[in-house]
């Protein structure tokens, strides 16, 4: 697919805007495999969530830099408009949301785990969904919040609620939550288990593990919780 544009989202993350070509369409929450090929035939592949809605004109992938990475530094530092990017997908049929799956919908994102939820939120708006949705997004600092302005705009829609928590540093006048996602925050944000929210969690593995365990411990039905994890566990 042809690269149209790269948009700097944070100092460590960019969105790659692609011109869909031979693209069968996707469902909100799905991912693609990106494959890079060196002149000697060596290849490296990685998976990235699709950040654009099925209704959008362009396909968008948001890539966060992995300090010791092989693919993300290339995508952030070398790839440019006019280049070709080899994609495979869409992939994954479980970590998806569409209106027929119902709600209310609770989305919990850690770091660049926000990417598939941008697709879900934009899809909800484009499809004129009446299902209430709440997003909790954990980032290290305000500067590391991806799609910050767009998320604020999405929160202006009826039935869409967006909450940030900052875990490492925050502005002096920060009125949002401070610190990691915990039981108190989740109970404050979530619908009670009796309302059977559909819950999606995406982020680094330890983040997902903690959030899912907390929600199950609070009485949410594990079968209503879908997870997508990335990165090492450190164990």
């Amino acid at each position, binding site marked *: 697919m042809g690269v149209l544009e790269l948009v700097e989202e944070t100092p460590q993350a960019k969105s790659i805007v692609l011109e869909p070509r031979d693209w069968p369409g996707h469902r909100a929450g799905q991912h693609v495999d990106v494959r890079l090929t060196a002149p000697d035939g*060596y290849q490296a592949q990685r998976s990235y969530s699709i950040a654009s809605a099925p209704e959008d004109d362009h396909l968008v992938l948001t890539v966060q830099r992995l300090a010791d990475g092989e693919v993300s530094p290339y995508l952030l530092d070398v790839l440019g408009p006019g280049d*070709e990017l080899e994609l495979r997908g869409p992939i*994954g*049929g479980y970590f998806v949301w569409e209106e027929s799956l119902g709600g209310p919908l609770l989305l919990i994102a850690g770091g660049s785990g926000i990417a598939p939820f941008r697709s879900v939120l934009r899809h909800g708006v484009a499809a004129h969904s009446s299902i209430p949705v709440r997003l909790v997004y954990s980032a290290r600092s305000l500067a590391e919040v991806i799609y910050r302005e767009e998320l604020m705009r999405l929160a202006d829609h009826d039935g869409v609620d967006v909450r940030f928590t900052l875990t490492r540093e925050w502005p002096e006048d920060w009125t949002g939550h401070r610190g990691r996602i915990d039981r108190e925050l989740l109970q404050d944000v979530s619908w009670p288990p009796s309302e059977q929210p559909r819950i999606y969690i995406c982020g680094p593995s330890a983040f997902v593990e903690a959030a899912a365990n907390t929600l199950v411990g609070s009485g949410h039905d594990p079968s209503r919780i879908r997870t997508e*994890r990335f990165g090492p566990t450190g*164990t």
Partner: protein
Amino acid sequence: MTPVSRGFFGRRRPVADPSRVPPGQYVTADFPVLSAGPTPHTPLDEWSFTIQGEVAEPVSWPWDEFRALPSETVTVDIHCVTKWTKLDTTWTGVSIDTLLEGVDTSAEYLTAWSDGGYTTNLALEDVTDGKAWVAHEFGGELLEPEHGGPARLLVPHLYFWKSAKWVRGLTFTADDEPGFWETYGYHNHGDPWLEQRYQGD
């Protein structure tokens, strides 16, 4: 022909033996986690391992009896469809051959099923003759819940989603019935050396 990615040369890390790394995979020292839902935490006194379905006589072992079965310690390479490969992982568990010793079946397929509702399908020939285990230790320690404990299937010659975490039993089936990821677009067999990642590979 795959086009070359302009300006990409790769940052190949030296691997002791490249012949152990299937196509499209990279070697990691970490142990990443992939799962579709929350981690189940089944108490051991409620845990059992069951073989059922198209068998003459179902059989089930509670945790203590399961742990008393002869176990093997194996060192194998594992390959996840999300592209990571981890070399020389050491597991202790009960060979499927041991579990099937007293089981009478003519079925050629089975579904492994887990706490939390996960399933994956396998051909009998892919789990017998020393090719698969129900592992309860990793690296000499009890297997942690996040990595599938108390016990997970270990089928190292297939992509790791076939090595069902939190496994509780095998159901023999007359026909090959796609499991969880196999229903969601992943390959039915999942041989990493043939790069059978997704349907159609």
